[in-house]
Each structure stands twice: as C-alpha cells, then as structure tokens.
C-alpha cells in the first residue's frame, strides 16, 4: 500500500518534441518524393539516399509511436493506482486524446469488472496485494476533516489521531498520503 505513488511521472505531452519529429519526417518525406521522381527518370545513385531517408522516417515513426504508447501505458497504470478519478495535477498533463483514451479504457475495465464475479461485479483494483487483515491501524498525517465509512458513520481525521478501520476504506487515503499505515 505504501509504494503505490511512485509509478513514474506523466509529464506534459511533449508537443514540441512531437512537432519537431513530425516536421523532420515531413521534410524527409518531401525530399524523398522529389528524389524518387528523379530516380525514376534515370539517376539511380539516389536510390541509396532514398533508402536512407526511408529508414530515418521509419525510425522516427517508431520513436514517436513508442513515446505515445509509453504514455498510454502509464495512463493505464494510473487507473489502477488512483481509481477512476485522476488528481487534477495529472489530468493537466494529459492531452485531449489521451483523456478520451483513458475514459474509454475506464469504460472497458468497468464493463469487464461488472461481468466478472456475479451480480455486483468484482472490483479488481482493490487489494492488489493479498491483505493480511481485515482492519488496519492508520495514523492521520494531516488534518483532513470528516471521512465517511460504510455504515454511514463518520470519522474525524485530525493530525496525529490514530484509527483502526477497515482496510478497503483506508487504501485511497493512504495513497493520497493523508493516512499512514502503522505497523507494530
């Protein structure tokens, strides 16, 4: 429960980098286009240059796609990490398309979870590591205010107060750094 937060940063989508890469690709492509027509009309020595530029294009394509895919993988991990609502800071760094992808992923995951495990579905994002106990002792690190538990009752989370609560209710707050799991 404690390590969850270090899943890697999701920085701003490097729009500049992408643009540069795409620019470069376009420039290479255009020159290739020009050279192909020349090669067709006789200049066979240009073929090597064309092939070289083609390899560069393919490489750039691979890099860009790898970059975008890596970001998607991180975003997917975020769903498992933070739940279905992402903190604003992270949301800020995602592009519109990425947000849409995230929403669709969320929907797929939810549909799948609902289909597994009987009537109510099974929340697979809970208890990723098998828990040792139903309840855990937690300590409050910052003043948080009131926190509602399952049976409707509330707990007042004040700094340095300790609580013995059901594990599943605490997980999210522990990830957010408001509660700390006390091992004794």
């Amino acid at each position: 429960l404690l390590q969850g937060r270090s899943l890697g940063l999701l920085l701003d989508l490097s729009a500049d980098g992408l643009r540069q890469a795409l620019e470069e690709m376009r420039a290479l492509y255009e020159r290739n286009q020009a050279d192909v027509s020349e090669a067709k009309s006789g200049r066979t020595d240009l073929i090597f240059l064309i092939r070289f530029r083609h390899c560069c294009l393919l490489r750039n394509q691979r890099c860009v796609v790898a970059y975008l895919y890596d970001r998607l993988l991180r975003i997917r991990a975020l769903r498992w990490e933070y739940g279905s609502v992402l903190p604003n800071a992270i949301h800020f760094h995602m592009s519109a398309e990425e947000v849409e992808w995230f929403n669709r992923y969320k929907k797929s995951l939810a549909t799948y979870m609902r289909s597994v495990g009987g009537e109510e579905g099974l929340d697979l994002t809970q208890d990723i590591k098998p828990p040792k106990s139903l309840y855990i002792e937690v300590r409050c690190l910052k003043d948080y205010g009131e926190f509602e538990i399952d049976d409707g009752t509330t707990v007042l989370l004040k700094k340095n107060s300790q609580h013995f609560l059901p594990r599943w209710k605490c997980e999210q707050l522990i990830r957010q750094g408001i509660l700390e799991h006390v091992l004794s």
Partner: protein
Amino acid sequence: VRIATCTNILKLLLFLQRVLLLVASDVDALCACKILQALFQCDHVQYTLVPVSGWQELETAFLEHKDQFKYFVLINCGANVDLLEILQPEEDVLFFVCDSHRPINVVNVYNETQIKLLVKQDDDLDVPAYDDIFRDEEDEEEDSGNESDGSEPSEKRRRFEEDVIERTMRRRQKREWEARRREILFDYEQYEYHGTSSAMVMFDLAWIMSKDLNDMLWWAIVGLTDQWVQDKITQMKYVTDIGILQRHVSRHNHRNEDEENSLSIDCMRIAFEYDLRLALYQHWSLYESLCNTSYTSACLKLWSVQGQKRLQEFLADMGLPLKQVKQKFNSMDISLKENLREMIEESANKFGMKDLRVQTFSIHFGFKNKFLASDIVYATTSLMENIEKEGPETDNFIKALDSLSRSNLDKLHQGLDLAKKQLRAIQQTVASCICTNLVISQGPFLYCSLMEGTPDVKLFSKPVSLCLLSKYLLKSFVCSTKNKRCKLLPLVMAAPMDVEQGTVIMVGIPPETESSDKKNFFGRAFEKAAESTNSRTLHNHFDMSIIELKTEDRSKFLDALISLLS
C-alpha cells in the same frame, strides 16, 4: 457501589460498534493504551485514538467527536471529576473510565447508567456511603394545618404548633445532614493519591478474556514501573503489584528455564530481576548512573566536595577502578561485572544506602537488546516531553507510543539518549538549588522557584519532568538539611512555563518520609488559594496538584497558600 466487572466489558466489546479512546499523556496511560489497542485489534473493534494532555483537550476532543461516537474510553483521565457535569453528554453515551487517579468523584461512582469504572476488585476506594451524600427530595410542606376538619380551635392550634415543631425539626435535620455531608466529602476529596496502574488493570482484563500475551505483560510492567519512578504509589503497593506480575511472568516465560525446550534467542522474554536501582546503568557508564540517580546522589550528597570524595571511597571500597567505571557499561571488564550487584549492595550498606536494589523486571530479545523496565519508563517519558522538536504536542505522544513497540528500537534508543540528558539536567539543577540555598521554608511547606536563565529550564516547563525534579530535589534537600522540622515538609516548586505569555508552572508534592502514604493535598489547596486571591490560574492537568498561573499573581497566590495551610 456500581463498578463495572470485566465480564461487562467483555459483552460490550463484542457488540461495540466504534469506540473513541481518550488517552492521557503519561507512560502508564500509554501502556494501558497499547494493551487495549491490541485487544481491540484482536476482536476487530474499530476505534479512534486521540491523545489528550489536559481537561481542555479532553473537552475539545469530546465535543469534536460526540456526534460520531457513542462509546468513549478514558485512560488515566476523568475519574476525579464529575464527568457528566463537565462534558454534558447525551443520554445514550457511555463512558468507560480506567484511571489511576484517586479519589474517584462520587458522582462517577454512583452513576449506574453512563459511567463504567474499570477498577480492580481489591482496590480500596473508601467511597462514602450513598445515603451520606445523596438524598431524595422529600416533601417538606405537609399542610395538615390547613385542612378544615371542623375541629375545635384549640385542637387546630395544637396541630399547627406540632406542625411547626415538625418542620423545624426536619429543617434542622437537613442542615445537620448537609453539614455532615460537607465534612465527609471534604475528608474524602482532600487528598489525592493513585490506585492500581491502568496498564495493570488492562492486563487483568486481557487475562480474564484469555487474550493476554507476553507483550501486554511487559506493558503492564512498564506501567507499574512508571508509577514507581514517579513516586505515585507506596512501597508496599509496589511490592504487592510486583508479586502479582511475577506470577504472570512465570506463567508466560517458564520455557526459558528449561535448557532443552527453550525458545530461540530472538523471542521476547521477560525475567524477574532484583537489580540495582541505578537509572539506565546498563546503557550508560556506571559512574554516570551513580551520579545521576537521585537515590545515590542524595545519600552520598554528591553536590558537595565531600560527597564527591565519598563517591570515590565508595568505588574504592568495591575495588572498581575509576577508568573502568567511567566506561560504557557494556565495555566494562567482565570480571568486574560478574558479581556487581551483590558487591555494590554490600558496599552500599556501609555507606547508608540500604535500598540500592529493587525488585523489577527486564526484557530480552535478540542478542543485543536487554532493557530494564525503568529504562523504558525514562526513555518514554523523555520522548513524550521532548522539547527539542518544534511541533504539536501530539507528535511527541505518537513517538512515545511508537517507542513502546519492539519494532521501533531506533525511537527507543533516541528516548534513552534524551533520558540521559534529562537526568543529567535534573541532577545539575538539584545540585545548584541546594548549593545556592534556593529551597526556602515558607512555614507549612518548602518552596523553590527556578529562574528564567537557569540552564535547561525549558525542560522543566513540562509537568512530568518538573515533578521528577521536585521529587529528586526534595530527597536531596532532606538529606542535606539539619533542620528536623524542614525534613517533614512538603515542597512546592515553580518554573517558568511560557515566557511570552508570562506563565509559571507550579507543582506541589507530599513530604518525603520513610512511610509516606503519597497522599497529596495540594490539589484542593491550590484551588482554594486561587479562588481567594482571584489569581489567574489554569487547572488543566489531570493531576490537580499541577497548575499554571500568571507570573504576576505568583506572590499573592503563595501568600494565600501559606495562610491557608498554616
């Protein structure tokens, strides 16, 4: 007398939804808290733990949480005041009070519905009888005189006279009853003292539920030892309680004596010890410990040059070279450590220290970790009253609570270091007070006031540290003075608390005598003196004999106190 039996608690534990634990800031309370937490965790009772250091914090915590909880457990707080009056709870709120403060407020004792006291069966409470203090309102007006029954005027007059006589008799009876009630209550509430350690009561609870563990037993031991270190219980009670705990220790730890079946060295074991009462000596050097333990320092009078010489003679008598004795205890020659206890006891007897050894317990786990119960008490107290770190007081509470778990050895060691500093500071302050004659007799009590620039004075703005200082000072003073009358006086000690706000913290401790019953009248005395002089005092601490007051009001307060007690 309605006192909750443990089976009562048992039943309630099974049905409890959620509980709020309000824990006072002393080591006994922390130990009791650890035991109760373990019991709750075992049975999956959800709880919230809030540390409180005084009445104000208790009230605030109650107000903040009263909408969310119906069950409150108070540890080492709440028994000596009318809880229902102060907290004004709803009718369905239930309080469980496990508090070693005595006397227990009569309302708390006789309340059948909302207050459950956790007290050991054989703890003698000396509570006055119900009828002596409570009385139902009786009809006072019986207007038989006004009935028109057609009787003759002379008869009417006679009946009227009889009525008047009856009414005056009843009024007089009521006044007499009230006067006797006031007297009874005054006697009952005059002296503060302490009952069985809360940690021991909790351990008893665990034992009755058959859920007691060696860990809990150790916490019970530390709780009792805290009462001993702070001089809150009589020697006899301490020895009796040690006997009780010893039976439990044998029961849990007998496997260690069997050579074949013994447990791994890493398992925790508790052993009974008849060990030296030198503070922290196994984690310090023998020399430092001798200098900084109040018993030896007072008996040898180590604040004087002669005292230092006596110390050297003492060490020479035992054949311990100075170089060895000043080393870390663990590095001392094994040959010297072999019969150390018996050797020291023998020599100590020659120097007038007959009680250098004391019955206590030690804990062992792993190869390196051995601690006496008193070591833990000093370490935890220093962590709890640590002035070195800025931050809310609850930070210190949490750290001290953590240090009681065996997995937090680093915090324990930090506590031991702080404790050494604290003990040194206490001895140095005691020495300077005695040498500069700062302890003066005010008539009915001795008085000593620490000035602002005194080194380490910030340490003594905390209640437990100040109390320890006062007790050690009184011990030393009694050994140093020739005035027979002064030896029997109690001590009032004052130290600056908050320079900006201009407040002073003041404690009163009972006299230091061989057979002292440790009963302290300063609680009530402080209250009365404050009332009569309109001094701005704050009686926030759970021990009524510790108060804060404004520096400007100090002299008139003291004058009132003197005249009150003369």
